[in-house]
């Protein structure tokens, strides 16, 4: 109930009011005279300054949570993973490519290792293709990660290494992102914005996949269900 | 004259008597305007109504006369009237008090007359 929530505030306001009010004959040193008025003038001046400063702050306007949900949402690509299974990755928009590797590999057998993949699950797909010879191509796709519609600056991608015939995929350090979201006060939004979503925040871009193309003749082995073999 | 505030005589009478003495010693001449009630109240630190009462008392006795809206003026034979009044009223009263006091002290008539004569001599030598 709102009231209960605000009891501490009520008490605190009462204390302050008692402190500053002096209706009776009580002697009140110090806080006499026009202190109150000067405080008000000074405070208003500071407020106006900060309002001006606020306008200069480097901020990026973002849409409200619900709108962000709409245009970046997963709904647009519900069958994200099917595309990988079927291998026709051309359909994916280019901006989803996060990182591409091309590695030389001239052996006939490839061992695929993805240690600690249980924490940061990366879906791995392997496609055997005839137009590659002696090299392996790996591309990491991710639906754009956005916070309330603001696409993040740094993107995550796993690290890949080839050593004596084994392709190691291991997680790289986590991308730390800190954001401050300035929300306009409720009176400004009461009559315009969709208030219900005010506190909602949405981070989109949960789907990611690592697509590896290997030359046709290479035999790929790994521990069970670390990757999916693409069947075009 | 300082008002004797705790004496028997009411203030307004004392004020009236003061004006009479002013007339007697010619500080206030015939047909001269007398102090207004407010001036008197200011001088003696008393309520103007009391001062006015003193002035009206003198006006009733004819010592002062009223000029519409201008205030009170000394009437022509004011001085004479005050002298007569003082003779047969105030002086008479003083004599009576003298006699009462003399009887209290069981003095004979001769002794009291002698005192008066000496006092008279003392007074007359000084005034000549």
């Amino acid at each position, binding site marked *: 109930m709102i009231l209960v929530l605000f009891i501490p505030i009520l008490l605190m306001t009462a204390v302050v009011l008692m402190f500053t009010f002096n209706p009776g004959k009580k*002697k009140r040193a110090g806080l*006499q005279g026009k202190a*109150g008025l000067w405080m008000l003038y000074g405070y208003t001046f500071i407020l106006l300054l900060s309002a001006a400063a606020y306008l200069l702050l480097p901020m990026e306007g973002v849409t409200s949570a619900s709108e962000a949900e709409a245009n970046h949402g997963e709904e647009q690509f519900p069958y994200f993973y099917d595309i990988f299974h079927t291998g026709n990755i051309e359909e994916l928009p280019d901006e989803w490519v996060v990182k591409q590797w091309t590695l030389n590999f001239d052996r006939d057998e490839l061992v695929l290792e993805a240690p600690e993949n249980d924490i940061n699950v990366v879906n791995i797909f392997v496609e055997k293709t005839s137009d590659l010879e002696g090299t392996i191509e790996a591309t990491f796709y991710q639906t754009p990660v956005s916070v309330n519609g603001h696409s993040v600056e740094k993107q995550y991608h796993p690290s890949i290494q080839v050593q004596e015939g084994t392709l190691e995929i291991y997680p790289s350090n986590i991308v730390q992102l800190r954001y401050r979201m300035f929300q306009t006060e409720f009176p400004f939004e009461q009559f315009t914005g969709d208030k219900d979503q005010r506190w909602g925040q949405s981070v989109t871009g949960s789907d990611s996949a690592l697509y590896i193309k290997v030359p046709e003749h290479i035999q790929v082995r790994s521990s069970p269900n670390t990757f999916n073999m693409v069947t075009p | 004259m300082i008002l004797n505030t705790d004496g028997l005589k*009411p203030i307004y009478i004392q004020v009236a008597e003061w004006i009479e003495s002013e007339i007697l010693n010619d500080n206030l001449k015939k047909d001269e305007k007398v102090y207004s009630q407010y001036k008197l109240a200011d001088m003696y630190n008393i309520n103007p109504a*009391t001062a006015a009462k003193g002035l009206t008392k003198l006006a009733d006795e004819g010592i002062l006369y009223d000029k519409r809206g201008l205030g009170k003026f000394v009437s022509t034979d004011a001085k004479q009237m005050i002298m007569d009044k003082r003779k047969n009223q105030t002086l008479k009263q003083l004599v009576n008090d003298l006699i009462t006091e003399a009887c209290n002290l069981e003095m004979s008539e001769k002794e009291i007359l002698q005192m008066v004569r000496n006092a008279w001599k003392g007074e007359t030598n000084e005034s000549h």
Partner: protein
Amino acid sequence: MKAIKCKDLIKRYRRKKALDNLNLSIEENRIVGLAGRNGAGKTTLMKILAGLLKEQSGIVEVYGRRPFNNLFVSANTIYIDDQMNFPSPLTLIEILEEGQRFYYNWDHELALSLFNYFGFHPKQRHNELSKGKESTFNMIVGLASRSPLTIFDEPTTGMDAAVRKDFYRALLKDYLNHPRTILLSTHYLEEMEDLLEEVVLMHNGSIFFHMPMDDLKTYSIGLTGKRTVLEPWAQEKEIFYTHDTGVDDRYLVIKNNLSDKEVEDMKQAGIRFSPVSASDLCVYVTDEKGRERGVDDVFNRSADR
């Protein structure tokens, strides 16, 4: 026009009747003293006149209007008592300036000169003042407002004798320049005898008497002499107060309606006459505990146990 008119005024606090069928009428532009013992109803009457309290029944009019909740009366009246409170953020000078804004007849020059004369510091605050200083400041506000009806409720509480004297002088001076109705309740009646034009004595919520000060001073007379000598004279006179001193000496206060002859004979009989001050008379006539007994009896009774 009458400044103040009260007819069968009743005011009740819970059970006690603060004002009991009070009738009073005061002409305008007079300085009137309101005397009476504590609890006689002086303050209640004044607060009703100032429009602060509501009367239970009866008619009360200030300049022809009912004071309670009346802006006209409030604009033309000022009520000064020791509970005057001004908001603490205002310094004394600022309070005077507020007075200047509110009161139409306010004389700021007078206020400032009195302010300096009585040695106030502009930056002082009202709740920092001592009792006497506070009364003095309130008095300045009362005087400077020049309200057609100025009511002082015991204005001199806490004032020292010198300040009281200055106050009476200032009051008279300003009254002479700007006559107005001034109602003063006081316990220092003897100090104001020359200042007041009329005296209203209140007792048990009603008016005991209301007469000009001059009449009040000669209303009674004090007789001192042997009890035996005084006895016959005092038979049919209205006695206000008796007090025995010494072996057989007595002091009597009686109504002053003696003929000159009687005065002469009494003087012959060795009875001494002395004036009775207005304030003493007020004390005598409102003596609840009966004519004879005084506070001495409290001690006498304990002594002879």
